[in-house]
């Protein structure tokens, strides 16, 4: 397995997949990203992040929902694995920990300035 650390975009994708439950696939994720985070990304970037997360074991996927519109091709629905949740939680914990140190730092900084 690849290293367990997450990139910023990967973490974002992982969170979004988690928020979608079982119905997350690349196109809707991209649309959601544009709406919620106001970030315009290319679909290939979304694919890239999803597949990397899958290779790292944070996501699993299943096929389903072939429509006429997709030319009969199946969708790949992603779901967060328990390892994925662990990593998300850890990352959250780490960030909260770091946040808790901010006031001191800020004061120090002020003094210095």
């Amino acid at each position, binding site marked *: 397995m690849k290293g367990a650390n997450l990139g910023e975009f990967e973490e974002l994708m992982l969170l979004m997949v988690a928020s979608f439950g079982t119905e997350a696939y*690349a*196109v809707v994720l991209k649309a959601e990203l544009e709406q919620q985070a106001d970030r315009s990304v*290319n*679909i290939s970037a979304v694919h*890239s992040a999803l597949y990397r997360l899958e290779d790292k074991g944070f996501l699993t996927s299943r096929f389903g929902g072939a*429509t006429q519109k*997709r030319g009969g091709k*199946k969708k790949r629905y992603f779901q967060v694995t328990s390892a994925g949740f662990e990593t998300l939680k850890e990352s959250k914990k780490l960030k909260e920990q770091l946040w808790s140190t901010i006031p001191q730092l800020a004061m120090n900084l002020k003094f210095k300035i």
Partner: protein
Amino acid sequence: MNKESSQPPKLGIWLLRKIYDEDRFDDVAGDLQEMYIDRLQAHGKRIASLYYFKDVILSSRNIGLKRKKQVIPTGRRGLFNNYFKIGLRSLVRNKSYSFINIFGLSVGIASSILILLWVQFEYSYDRFFPRHDHIYQLKLNVNNNGIVATEDNMCLPVYMALRNADSRVKTTCVTTPTYGRSLKYKNKDVEKEVMAVSTEFLEMFGIHLVVGTTHSLDDPHSIVLSESTAREFFGDSDPINQLIKINHDWELKVTGIFKDLPENSTFWFHALIPISADAKTDQWLALYGNHWDSYAWGIYAEIPPGSPIYQINANIKDLIKPHFDDGYNPELTLQAMDRWHLYETFVNGKEAGGKIEYVRLFTWIGVLTLLIACINYMNLSTARSEKRAKEVGIRKSIGSHRSELVVQFLLESFFVTCIAFAIAILLVKLSLPAYDSLVGNRLDLDFGSPGFWLLGAALIVITGLVAGCYPAFYFSSFLPVKVLKGKVQIGKNAMLPRKVLVTTQYVFAIFLVIGMIVIYQQIQHVKSRALGYQQENLVMIACNEEIEKNYRAIKNELLKTAVVAGVTLTGQPIDHDGWNEFVEWNRNGTYEKAIFIRCMAEYDYTKTMGIKILEGRDFSEEITRDSTEVLMNQTAIRLMGFKDPIGQTVKIRGRERRIVGVIADVLMGSPFDPVKPAFVAMLGDAHLHINIRLSKTGDLAGSMTKVGAIFKKFTSANEFGYQFADERFADKFRTIELIGKLANLFAFLAIFLTGLGVFGLAAYTAEQRTKEMAIRKVLGATARNLILLLSNYFTRIALFAVVIAAPLSWWALDTYLKNYSYRISIPWWTIPLTSVVILFITLLIVTTQVMKAALANPVNSLKGE
């Protein structure tokens, strides 16, 4: 919705398929198509397609994901991948063996490439002429008392007669031989090789004209220069219509420039002039246009390919006969341009080889060297068979056919050969400068030509097959049950073929070494033979008219300087044997005649040349008044059988001549032939060479400057051409010295490669028998015993090879030496010496390898079990 319009661009889909693997393509393509449809409905087809392409192109970032998920290929491709991987691993695992294998093959391939380059160069002679397959040179066979001499020089009337003799002769052309002539423009005066040709020449030979047309030589006062010569005279300015003075005599207008002749040309000239321009030739033309008795021209014929040359030969054969002296049976014959260079020797009026023999000889030596390298590969691969045996056993038991294993090991040898070939190319590139100076040509690899790659591929395939087929069939023959049990000593099966192969290597190596020694001996033998004259400090200067006119004055001035000990005029260089004359003499009342070499000279001939007078005297300025006096060499006197030669008379060209002196045998002509009978007569009016004996000052260059200064006083030429007698003599050894050098090179390579192979085998044997050595040592064997035991194998092979190679090489070299009448008999010590040297090298290599095993502490190798 219309199905057609809802499909994204095909090219995009195709690209996408390249980017993603099978597993992910489907859903990605689905996603992209979904977005495409949305955009199609919102913005129309064009925009949607553009966005689709953008998505596809940006998707190329995910190409890296594909490889990670790559499945192990199965089927034939998977098998090949596996062969490759296993082959590479076994190469990497046994670094020293791989090195010996690959390096040995590289050296073998490199040397065969070098040989091929030379061979190809020799074959390429004259092929650059666009109509080389149309052109023939006329040769004349003259029967001199049963010995047929083949001459290139023709008489002029044949030039036209040839065209009329056979309608298939399209055209003919006549040339003078190439002479060094002085060309002068303003202050620049240089001697250049100039050939006078008839007007057909430019067209017939397809001379590559940069400026000018095939009619550039139609005007009798024109000259066509080579590019480099034109640059030398005119630099960057336009040479056309400039006037060049030739032989300080008359002026010619530059009317054309031709591309410099390449090195592989039989013709060699810097400039061409019309034959009619040459004032002298012009006179000759007038004089001899209908004269069938002056032979000085080269005549060439153009005949369309496909014409039956033997029929044409039959038609032209007797063209000269009616005009020739009786009894010589002169016959004309044609030689194709493609054969001029390689088949230059004629015996009895027929082509009898020439350089082609050396080309063939060295092709064989190249093949042998490559074979020695291939044998190394075979031996080392099969010697290591134990290491690969288990692999073969497993492959067979899980279903490999024998044929598949053969393919596997062949592919492995091709793989190794490819690596070796790449290294060989590097080696060739590195050694080319040295090799070029060795063979005296500029050779290079032509990476641009398809022929090179074709030849390279052929070399790889042949080497790979030869080196790989024996190991392939040997390995694939293992029985899986036996090898997997590990009880069978498979090495034993390979013993006999391996012995045969190593013996073969040794035989080649010994043969080449003996050849090298014998050729060296022969060269030394001939070089040190008695010349009959003193070669050192003898210099020869070709005359022109100015020098001839002022000869007496020049001679006097030269003799006044301290650096000159003697001066004489001759009609030919001292070592020239080209002029022959019948000499008749009276032996006990009957007239006998034979062909003698004719030398023309004047006073001080013997003194200047350093020739010993054995009886009588030299020409004398006090006594000699006419040309009735001759000197004879010893061989001539012996032939004629005169007891008291001085004062005897002989008849030359019907005139009586009196022998006044007997001189030592002077070696003229080929140094490999016996001295022929010769006479020296006083010069008529054709003065060609001034010979100068320099005093022994030890400063040749200084002496030559002084001599040059005197010549400059009397001539307008800036430079004058001179030649040292010893340099001329050395030129006669060029061919045999080239053979000697190449023999040295390849003998060295053969020993090196054989040694490399023995090194590998010895190292392997020592390694394999480590435990045996240890046990022997424990039981009381000394290191000396062990070394003897192991080296025994190789010593026996080497000795056996000597037994085979000795008679073989003796026979081959004796046959080769038969080409030379002045030759050594093969010294008795060559074969024992070579054997001892070869044995010594073998023992040295084996001992260094075995020493390690013999000196090792037996505990270390035995404690493992």
